């Protein structure tokens, strides 16, 4: 059986092509390495209330519906998202990248919200992240505490939640990625590593099941040293394919 990973396209989505390419790269790596079964990327259209039989979904980055109202606020009500929310609640792995993370927060699949960067600038740079949870469906390929280099590009990427929610995320080990950098020392991150004012340097989080993950940086842009700063992002897609291959058909 061929595992299928759906990638959603909304009006204004930018990174669906790169996300699908990342899935294909990961599938190719698996095929070359062992007797793993084939995987394919499936394009999903925002207006279709149909997941086309996919086994996992990537909600990619961009500016869905022009970021009108709030980033992700209108995309969250697109017909395809109704299906994603229902499938996610039944355990289907879902990854939200950048605008996709904003959509998942608006949809209530992940807690908190993303707001305007604290210095108002759109930030576009290569960013070091520390992997803090390696048990989610999207991060099993990483070593705990690994530092990875992934591009970040956003104007509304500051992660916000109230203090009890932040405490719960920390206590339940649901912070998946944290911003780090040269200013990181002895496990303490100084302010400069954080590109957007995110609370507690949070770059990505997971739901309680570890199946739904959202992050602001772009792993799909870091899958090949030719076109990205590293291939550190590929591990997220390999992790998901591992999870799908391991799942009962």
């Amino acid at each position: 059986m061929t595992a299928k990973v759906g990638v959603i396209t909304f009006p204004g989505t930018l990174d669906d092509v790169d996300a699908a390419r990342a899935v294909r790269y990961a599938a190719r790596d698996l095929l070359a390495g062992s007797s793993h079964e084939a995987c394919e990327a499936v394009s999903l259209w925002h207006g279709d209330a149909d997941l086309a039989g996919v086994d996992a979904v990537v909600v990619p980055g961009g500016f869905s519906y022009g970021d009108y109202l709030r980033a992700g606020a209108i995309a969250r009500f697109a017909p395809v998202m109704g299906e994603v929310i229902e499938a996610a609640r039944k355990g289907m792995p879902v990854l939200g990248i950048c605008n996709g993370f904003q959509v998942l927060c608006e949809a209530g699949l992940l807690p908190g919200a993303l707001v305007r960067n604290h210095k108002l600038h759109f930030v576009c740079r290569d960013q070091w992240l520390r992997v803090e949870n390696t048990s989610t469906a999207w991060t099993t390929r990483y070593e705990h505490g690994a530092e990875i280099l992934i591009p970040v590009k956003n104007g509304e990427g500051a992660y916000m939640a109230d203090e009890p929610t932040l405490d719960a995320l920390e206590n339940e080990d649901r912070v998946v990625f944290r911003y780090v950098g040269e200013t990181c020392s002895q496990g303490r991150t100084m302010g400069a590593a954080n590109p957007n004012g995110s609370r507690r340097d949070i770059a990505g989080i997971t739901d309680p099941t570890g199946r739904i993950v959202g992050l602001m940086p772009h792993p799909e842009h870091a899958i090949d040293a030719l076109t990205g700063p590293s291939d550190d992002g590929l591990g997220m897609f390999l992790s998901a394919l591992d999870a799908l291959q391991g799942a009962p058909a």
Partner: protein
Amino acid sequence: MAKVVVDVMPKPEILDPQGQAVARALPRLGFDGVADVRQGKHFELEVDDSVDDATLAKIAEGFLSNPVIEDFVVRRVSE
């Protein structure tokens, strides 16, 4: 038909960098004495008389605002 106004503002504890930028610009433009600025959104809705307050609250809370970061006020205004 009735006119309904929904004002959406960032919660007090949420940093409002846009409002801060406006506040910082005012002294440069020669306007002194403005201690703080908060920036939000103002919606004007033309609604049928059949739309009740509970429905308006649902619209404001479930769509026009994000309750994680924003507060809202719904007002019916007479023409």
